C-alpha cells in the first residue's frame, strides 16, 4: 500500500512536471511565434520589393530610349514609391570593387581607371532600411 502510494506520488510529480512544462512550452512558443511573425513580415516585404526591382531595371532600360515626359514621370513615381518603403539606391562612384555591395558582371578597358575599379553600373543596387537588398551589377576596369 505504502509502496503503491510512493509510486503514485512519483507518478503525480512526473505528470505535474510534464503539465507545467507543456504550459511553459506553449507560452514560450507564443513568444517565439511573435518574433517569427515579425521576422516573416520583414522578410515578405523584402521579398516583395526585391521582386519589384527587375521591373524598375527594365523601366530604366526603357528610359534610355524613350524620352517622353509622361513616361519618365511613371519612372519617377515608381522610384518615389520604393523610397517611401525604405528602399534606397546604392550610390556607386568610381570606387574600388567591393563584393559586399557589388556583383561583377564583366570587365572593360578603361584608360585612367585603376584595374579593379568600378567602371560602369549595369544594374543599380538597392538597400532596404540600410541593409543590402540587391547588389549593384557592375563592370570593372581591366
Amino acid at each position, binding site marked *: 500500500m505504502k509502496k503503491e502510494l510512493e509510486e503514485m506520488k512519483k507518478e503525480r510529480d512526473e505528470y505535474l512536471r510534464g503539465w507545467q512544462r507543456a504550459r511553459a512550452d506553449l507560452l514560450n*512558443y507564443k513568444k517565439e511565434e511573435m518574433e517569427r511573425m515579425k521576422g516573416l513580415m520583414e522578410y515578405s516585404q523584402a521579398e516583395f520589393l526585391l521582386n519589384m526591382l527587375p521591373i524598375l531595371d527594365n523601366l530604366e532600360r*526603357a528610359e534610355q530610349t524613350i524620352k517622353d515626359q509622361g513616361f519618365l514621370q511613371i519612372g519617377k513615381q515608381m522610384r518615389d514609391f520604393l523610397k517611401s518603403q525604405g528602399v534606397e539606391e546604392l550610390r556607386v562612384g568610381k570606387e574600388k570593387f567591393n*563584393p*559586399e555591395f557589388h556583383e*561583377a*558582371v*564583366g570587365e572593360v578597358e578603361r584608360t585612367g581607371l585603376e584595374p579593379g575599379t568600378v567602371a560602369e553600373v549595369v544594374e543599380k543596387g538597392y538597400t532596404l532600411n540600410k541593409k543590402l537588398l540587391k547588389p549593384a551589377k557592375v563592370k570593372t576596369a581591366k
Partner: protein
Amino acid sequence: MGTTLSEIAVMEGGAAKVLENREGARTTPSVVAVSKNGEILVGIQAKRQQITNPQNTIFQVKRLIGRRYTDAEVQRDKKLLPYEMREAPDGGVEVKMGEKWYKPLEISAMVLRKLKQDAEEKLGEKITEAIITVPAYFDDSQRKATKAAGEIAGFEVKRVLNEPTAAALAYGLDKQKNERIIVYDFGGGTFDISILEVSENTIEVKGTGGDTHLGGEDFDQKVMDWLIGEFKKDQGIDLSKDPLALQRLKEAAEKAKVELSTAMETEINLPFITSDASGPKHLLYKLTRAQLEGLVREYIEKSIELVKQTLKEASLNPQDINEVVLVGGQTRMPAMQETVKQLFNKEPNKTLNPDEVVAMGAAIQAGILQGEVRDVLLLDVTPLSLGIETLGGVNTILIQKNTTVPTAKSQVFSTAADNQTSVEVHVVQGERPMAEGNKSLGRFILDGIAPSPRGVPQVEVTFDIDANGILSVTAKDKATNKSQSIRIEGSTGLSKEEVEKLKKEAELHEAEDMKKKEFIEARNLADTLLYTAEKTLKDMGEKVSADIKSEVETRIEALKKVKDSGTIEELKGATEELSQALQKIGSQVYQQGEQKGEENPPQGEQSQP
C-alpha cells in the same frame, strides 16, 4: 556541405532549425576567393566577383576533397573547372588561389568557418561541436578530409553523417524497422541515389549510384538554349554572344523553371534584351509546363535509368523499397515526382523543404547524440476532420484534420422547426462537405427540449478527443442542462490506406460536393427567409400597407415554387427578391415604431442541426 551550397541547422526546442547567415540567407554558396587586393572572401561575396576573377575563385571543391590527383574524376573535373590544380606531394590535389596553393579541405574549412561564425552571431553563443554530412559514396579518405576540414574550422566533429541517412532521419524513418529506403537526391549540379536499410538502431547503406554531373543547372541551361534558339529564329540575333544578355537569360530561365513547378504556364519577359541598327529588341515568350517537361525529359529519364541500375546492382526490385525520399530543389518539379512515384508505385516523402532536409537531419542526429531528442510524448494528430450532420445533410466540421490531440471544441446549434423537442446528432469523419459522403462514426438523440420556435433552443455540441484518440461527443440543451453523449474509440486510428482513400474521394468529388453544398445552403437560406416572412406577416400584418403585404405574399409564393424544383440561380434570385420586399416591411414598421419611440430587439442567427 553541398557541392554548390552549404547550410547549418541547430536543434531548438526539440526541432531542427536552419540558421540564416550574416547576409540573411539560409544557404551559403560553397565558394571561396582571394580578391584582387588579396582579401579572402567566402560565400556570396566570393560568388559576386567570380566572373571577373575566375582563376582565383574556388568552387565545387567537394568534387576534389580527399581524392587523389590521378583519380579519373579529378582529371575530368580539372578540364571543367577554371582554376589551377596540381598534384600535392602526398598524391592528393592542390588548388591555386591567389599566389598560394591550398588543399581542398582547407577551402572547405573556410566555408565551414564562415557558417560557424555566422551561426554563433545568430545564436549569441559559441558552437564547439558539429556533425558534417557527406554523400554516401564518399570513401574513407574523403570522409577523413571532410572531418579534418571541420576541425580546422574549429569544430569538434562528432560524426561524419551520410546525406541520405540525414534525409531519412529528418523524416523520422529511422524508427521503422527492417525497411528499405531509397533517397533520390537531385541537387544543383549532382544527382545521387542511395539505398538504405533500417534495422535495429542502425541505418546501413545498401547501394549508391547517380551522376556527379547531372543537376538542376542542366535544366536551366536547356531553358536558356531554347530561349536563345527562339530569339534567333524570330529576330536573327544570337544572344549567346552577349554576356549581359546571357546573365539576364540565366536568371529568367531559372525563375521560369521554378514557377512551372506550381503554375501550368509562365512568361519570360525581358524588354530591351539587346539592340541592333533598327533599335532596341525585346524578348517575350510563353513557356508551358508541358514544354519544359519536353525540354528536360531526357534528364528525368536518365535519372530513372540510373535508379534502376542502382537497384539492380543491389539485387533489388522497385517493390522491395518501402519508402522513397526526395532531396534537392529540383525534386519540386511535378513531372519528376510523378516519374519517381510511378517507378516505385509509392507516394514519395516530400513534405519537408528538399533544400534543407539534409541539414535538418544532421541537426536531429546531433540532438540524438546529445540526448535532446527524447521520445518524451508522441502527440497524435487527427488524420481527418470530424463534424456533425446539419440541416440539409451538410457536414459541419468541428475539429479540423491535423489537429494535435488531446483537444476539445464546442459549437452551439439550434432547431430547424417550430416546437421541435429532439435533435439527432450524427457524427461523421471526413473532408467531404456533405455528411453522406463521409464515414459515419455514430449517432444519438437528445430529447426533452422545451417546445419553442425554430432557432430559439440552444444545443451545445462538444467534441472532445483525449490523448488516446477516444472521441466523446456531447450535446447539451442549455435551457434544461439535459445532455446526451456518445463515446467513439479509435477515431484517430484509421489505417493509412483508409485515410488515403477518404482523402482521395474528397478530392475527386470536390467540385460536385461544393455545388451540392451551395445548393443546400441556398435552400436553407430560402427556408429561413420564408419562415421569417410568414411570421412577420402574421405578427405585423396590420401595421403594413396593403400593397407591400401583397407584394411580400407574391414573393413568398414565387420562392416556394422554385425552392424544391428550380435551379440555384432561380432560387437565389427569388430569395433576394423576397428579402428586398421584406425590408420594406421592416422600414415601414421601423418608421412607425420610431414615431412611437419603440425599439426592436436585435435578432441573432444560428445554424440548425
